[in-house]
Every structure is written in C-alpha cells, then in structure tokens.
C-alpha cells in the first residue's frame, strides 16, 4: 500500500470537474498546500467547490518579499464555482481579492460559516456525526432558515456535517504509513479536513520511514491519509 506519490501533478491528476475540495491552512503561508494548489491550477479541473478558512487571500501572514500561492489562483482562473469559508474577502475593501470580484459578478457562490462552526462541521463530517447544535450565530444571518432549539435555556442552531471528495493539506513531516505531524499554528484546519475527505493528499517537507515520528506527536494518524507528496 504505497502512499508516496512522486509529484503533485500525479497526486491531483484524478480530480474531476465538480469535485468538492477542502484546503488546509489558516490563510497565509503556514499550512497552505501551495504545490498541490499550483498543480491543480495546471490540471485544470473546473466547477470546483472549495472549503477553506478563507476565500483565497494573497498577502495574509506573508513574509515580506515572499509570494504565497493560495486557492486565490484557482478562483482567478475561473475553476471554482462555490466557496465555503469564514473569511472570504480581503480585510481591506479597497483591495478586493479574486473571490470578491467574481462574487460581485455572480460568477462564484458563497456559503459563509463562522470559523468555529466551520471547524466543527468538518470534524463532524470526519467523525460520522451528521448534525449538531451550537449557540454560535443564533439571531444572525448565518442562522437564517436553519432549525433552532433551546437547550438548558440557550437557543442553538442545527448545523450539518461537511465532507469532501479531496482534502489538500500541508504538514511538516510524514512517515510512509501516512502519519502526519505539523508545526506550530500551521496545524489549524488540516487534521480535521484529513478526516472528512474521501481522498486526503498531504504535501510535506519530509517523508520519513515508518516509526520516525513520535507516536505522541502524530496529529493526523495515517488511517486518514491516502497520498503523500514531498514538496
């Protein structure tokens, strides 16, 4: 059961038009699967749904002088039909990202989700929990049209699990069984997305022999990872 792919191109080759893809990372360079995204841009699949914390930002958390490739490039190229995110647009209205421009033109849809609800819905998708109640968002636009219910005196809204065809992640290192370890704040959504996709693809700095990651540090056990590629 070899999980190691030799190139990002090979690892994303079978992504079909219409696929639902989770993309890890918080927004900036840390945790962003830049090589897989670039490969998917070149591969050209269309009508994609992207589930990610942001709608694709260019300069978030960027080192000065560096360029981070994010799903922004997939939106620019017109490959994306729908975005599910908590932070879809740039912080500054005067510098709209590709998502905002296309959204205003009606060329891309948005499902806006509070960040904690987004994380929990992805976790639920991976954990076989079809739906849960949360107090987040009650009385706001994100609860419109959703079922609400009072528990212990607190009004809550019913939220449903999110799943995907693919998850693209960046981790710090992997072993050949697919175990992943992350670094610092670059963990964020990736371990959750790894559980919620049919095919999880991890772009990593190093692929080590089985047993070279401390079993206490593994944040994504190999059961969730189908493909590994060294960036």
């Amino acid at each position, binding site marked *: 059961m070899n999980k190691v792919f030799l190139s990002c191109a090979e690892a994303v080759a079978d992504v079909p038009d219409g696929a639902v893809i989770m993309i890890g990372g918080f927004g900036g360079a840390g945790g962003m699967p830049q090589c897989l995204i670039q490969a998917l841009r070149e591969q050209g699949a269309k009508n994609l749904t992207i589930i990610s914390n942001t709608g694709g930002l260019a300069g978030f958390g960027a080192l000065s002088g560096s360029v981070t490739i994010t799903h922004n490039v997939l939106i620019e190229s017109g490959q994306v039909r729908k975005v599910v995110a908590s*932070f879809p647009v740039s912080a500054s209205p005067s510098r709209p990202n590709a998502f905002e421009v296309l959204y205003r033109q009606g060329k891309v849809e948005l499902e806006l989700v509070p960040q904690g609800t987004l994380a929990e819905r992805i976790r639920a998708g991976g954990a076989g929990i079809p739906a849960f109640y949360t*107090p987040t968002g009650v*009385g706001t636009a994100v609860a419109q049209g959703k079922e609400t219910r009072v528990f212990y005196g607190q009004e809550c809204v019913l939220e449903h699990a999110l799943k995907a065809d693919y998850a693209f992640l960046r981790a710090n290192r992997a072993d050949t069984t697919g175990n992943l370890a992350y670094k610092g704040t670059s963990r964020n959504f990736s371990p959750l997305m790894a559980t919620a996709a049919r095919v999880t693809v991890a772009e990593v700095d190093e692929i080590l022999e089985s047993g070279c990651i401390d079993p206490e540090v593994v944040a994504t056990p190999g059961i969730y990872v189908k493909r590994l590629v060294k960036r």
Partner: protein
Amino acid sequence: MPERLNREAIAMRVAKELPDGAYVNLGIGIPTLVSQFVPEGRTVAYHSENGLLRYGPLAAPGQEDIDLINAGGQFLLPVPGMAFFNSAEAFAMIRGGHIDVTVLGAFQVSERGDLANWMLSSRGVGNIGGAMDLAAGAKRVIVAMEHTDPLGNPKIVRECSYPLTGQHCVSLIITDVAVIEVGAAGLRLREIAPGWTPEAIQEITEPRLAVADNVKEITL
C-alpha cells in the same frame, strides 16, 4: 469638544479589565494592542483561534516564522508554556466557555448588548472569522472602539443597522470617551474621559445612558 483617548489609551483602559490568571482572546485592531498594557503583577494567557494558547510579543522583522502567527496573520515570538492544537479544539475552548474575556472591535453595539462587527452593509460581503464564536462563547465580551464612526454617527445604537455578530453578548463597552456597562436594565455610564461630561457623551450616544452614582474619570 474635549480631546478623545487615542487607540493606545483605549487599549490601556481595556487592559485593566483583565484579571490575573485570565485566559483572553484579543480581536483585530485596538484589541490587539491590549496585551502590551496589562498591569504589572498580573499574568494573562492569550488564546488565538488559529490553534495557540499562550504567546509572546510580535516578532520583529527577520524573526518571523510562518508557523507561528496569530489569527490576524501577525508573526509571534514563542513563549514557555505554549500549546498548539487544531481549529476544532481552538473553538471548543471558545464555545465551551473556557475563555474568560474576549476583546473585540465593533461597528455598532446596541443597548441590549447586540454586537455588529463583521460587515459594513455597504460592502455586501464580509468576514466573520471567529467573531460569532467569540461573541457567543466567551464568558465576558468587551468591546473596544471609537465612540462614533468617521462621519460622527453614534456607534452605540438602539438597534444595530449592520448585520449582527451576536445577540445580547456584550458586557462592557470601552470607547475613546467612555466606559459603559451593558446590563439587563440597559446601558450605564461608569467612566468618562477627562474634560467630558455625561451630557456630552449622551449627545453622541443613541440610546439613553443611565449615569452611575459614582461615575468617575477614566484613569489609565
């Protein structure tokens, strides 16, 4: 008109609200400035919703590490006692009531403590990020903001006209001219900036302010 507090001074006043040992999440903008003003002798542990508990000051140029940022995308320095975790865990801490205080910016706060801080209606699209979770989940929500918007309109209003972030969630509003408590009976003016009167503050505030018996000048 008397002078207003600058952003740093607002942050200094907010800092006094953080008790020793508190777990605190600071939003983007003025709230981010709060950490540098915590009174001596108090230890506050900061939480960042991108998966971090306890962090050091901002990293200077050349010290940046892409794997150590806050939720605003700023680079941080490490500090002993840090812990890293995933986003579901980060928000379990928030939603589960483990964050003692969050300090958030706002476009508007209503007299019932409704908060609007994620979208200017004129833009038509906006970023929620972690704000709705923090509004609903933190034990105490403090708003730090200017008292009026750039056009001079009150930001403390009877009903928020901007889309809501949370209902009945704000406990305390700290602005560049006043400290106002949100209670079951409405708003209560507790402190005022030097040179200001309760009447002058009421004038730039839409809902009626009850004035605390012991209303006093803001000290930093």
